[in-house]
């Protein structure tokens, strides 16, 4: 029954729209300022800026193991 499936499709759309409407929104200028502040404050924890210690780096150059 196509009317039944459109009804369920419509209901799903309404639910989705309700979710989207309840999302918290802030102004772009505020978001940009927050992002900038977050990046500056967490710069010391940023691996791309500070680098990863060789010991914990899973992608370091593999050193050959010598078998005794």
């Amino acid at each position, binding site marked *: 029954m196509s009317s039944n499936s459109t009804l369920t499709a419509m209901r799903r759309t309404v639910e989705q729209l309700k979710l989207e409407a309840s999302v918290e929104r802030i*102004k*772009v*200028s505020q978001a940009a*300022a927050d992002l*900038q*502040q977050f990046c*500056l404050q967490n710069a010391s924890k940023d691996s791309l800026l500070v680098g990863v210690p060789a010991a914990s780096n899973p992608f370091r150059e593999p050193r050959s193991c010598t078998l005794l």
Partner: protein
Amino acid sequence: MAMRQTPLTCSGHTRPVVDLAFSGITPYGYFLISACKDGKPMLRQGDTGDWIGTFLGHKGAVWGATLNKEATKAATAAADFTAKVWDAVTGDEVLTLAHKHIVKSVNFTQDSNFLLTGGNDKVLRIYDLSKPEADPQEIAGHTSAIKKALWCNNDQQILSAADDKTIRLWDKNTQEAVHTLSFDASVTSMEYIPDGEILVITYGRTIAFYNAHSLDLIKTVDAPASIHSASLHPEKDFFVAGGDDFKLYKYDYTTKEEMESYKGHFGPIHTVRFSPDGELYASGSEDGTLRLWQTAVGKTYGLWKCVLPEELSSENSEVLYCPPAEIKA
């Protein structure tokens, strides 16, 4: 003292921005509406460029958009042969006015009671917004598509620019053309400044200023490239213009000298307008962005904050580069 101009780039549109308009100054600040070929005009906070909302409903490119003085109503003109009136506070479509061809221009009267429309059907229409079902008053006379239609002289007269290379001044009551100006080239834009009764017109590489009552020429200024739009500062100290070479030019109105030019856009500039307080001007381009430029570069206003070289940290602002002489090694 040369400060670098850092424009605020407002993205969001997916096609060229063809028209923009500011509201008056309201208790909530001032607002700006942009018309775009993607059919989705956007409302933005005027001093920061923050997106507020998008008016959804048009089924074709939106060629003209305007706000009323109080920023409570918006009107748009589109290629879907309709002009729409919107509630600018809720974003709801209030009225759809069907036309017989592409509508290019919309303009509210000062009291927001009447809407003037003009488009490719060559007829100017005046809608009484308190009686929307009633037929509009029609003014015919142009021999080709109308590009821009504006109320002027206390909403008693109408100025219209069309592809027939004329600008006509009409009396609203007699519906007759009081004055006609003819040009050799198509007029690309028109702006009316009520305080001072000045009309700003652009055609070819020229920006021309006329008296809005008599249509007497005040002065003309030639630019290095083809100009699509120009706007005069509310205090009439300068005017800005933009066109085919992607640059924005700033001129001194009194001396006609070119003061500055700014690069930034990635496509021809279709529209420029000064904000109602004159502190910034907005430009809309083929590249789909709007850029807000400071009139007084270096001034702290909106999102711009002047930072001197000694203070290297700044939040919530665009950092402006300050004169090299003050930088310490």
